[in-house]
């Protein structure tokens, strides 16, 4: 989902930078609040960031015959919300832009917007909706991670279609979707499943933190 260095016109780089910067600053404020109120939140935050670090380094083959990588942005979203996940995505994207030439510094804003904002926001909506329907936390987190991953790639396609509309913006968008989102579907399923596994372990180890953060209710924690 990385837009490569230099592959976005300066105007669009600036637009995505501004939007992303606002969300990231808000996310930093939320991190300060969450960790000040609750000491136990810090390891969970580190774990969410580390999970993103691992998943975005795994380039997996897909049934479309090309390779892509999952994002890991669903886990942090469920625990801390989309804005905090945007902050975590900055760390991952900077590492990859500087050391691996994946993504870039000029396109950083656009990449934060897709991986750290659109994906997590869509995932969060799914999470809230499924939890309202009384679906269990592990099942809900599967769908959250699936949607957050897939929408990240849809957002990348939107960003590129806006910047390079060609003759027909709609057909360009579909072409980018074909490149990014189609490849991503099986990987998003894999990401959903992996997120579910790590969530299961977290709920097993420290259900009390999840109750404090309002992720699960006390009955659910007790049932474990």
């Amino acid at each position, binding site marked *: *989902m*990385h*837009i*490569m*260095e*230099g*592959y976005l*016109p300066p105007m669009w780089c600036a637009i995505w930078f501004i939007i992303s910067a606002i969300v990231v600053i808000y996310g930093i404020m939320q991190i300060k609040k969450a960790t000040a109120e609750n000491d136990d939140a810090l*390891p*969970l935050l*580190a*774990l969410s*960031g*580390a*999970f*993103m*670090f*691992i998943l975005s*380094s*795994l*380039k*997996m*083959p*897909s*049934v479309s*015959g*090309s*390779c*892509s990588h999952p994002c890991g942005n669903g886990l942090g979203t469920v625990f801390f919300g989309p804005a905090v996940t945007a902050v975590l995505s900055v760390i991952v994207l900077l590492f990859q832009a*500087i*050391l*691996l*030439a*994946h*993504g*870039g*510094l*000029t396109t950083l804003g656009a990449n934060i917007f897709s991986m750290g904002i659109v994906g997590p926001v869509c995932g969060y909506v799914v999470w809230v909706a499924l939890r309202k329907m009384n679906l269990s936390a592990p099942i809900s987190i599967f769908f959250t991670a699936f949607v957050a991953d897939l929408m990240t790639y849809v957002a*990348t396609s939107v960003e*590129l279609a806006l910047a*390079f509309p*060609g003759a027909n913006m709609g057909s*360009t968008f579909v*072409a*980018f979707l074909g*490149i*990014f989102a189609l*490849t*991503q579907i*099986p*990987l998003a399923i*894999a990401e959903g*499943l*992996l997120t*579910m*596994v790590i969530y*299961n*372990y977290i709920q*097993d*180890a420290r259900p009390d933190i999840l109750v404090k953060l309002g992720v699960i209710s006390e009955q659910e924690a007790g049932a474990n």
Partner: protein
Amino acid sequence: MDWKNIGILIIVAILIVAPLIIFNGHGEDDGYFGGSDDQGGQYIEQNNPNYKVWAAPLWEPPSGEIESLLFCLQAAIGAIIIGFIFGYWYGGKKAKKQQ
């Protein structure tokens, strides 16, 4: 619960291995298993021949070997943090039980 997690991981493994079986015999040279990021870049170049790429990465890994080294490092950093935190949590739980 452990068995459930192992079952899920087996499904993940099948998802990863399936494309390798489906496209067995194909490789990078005939257009398989490349990165979707690069495909996106190629599409832009083909359809917007007038667009000039206006920035280049500050530094690029000099070879595929170095690149895989750095990707491993990225995964290792994440894995160390996750392992440390779970160890810390489970260790704390055990100590509490013993008291």
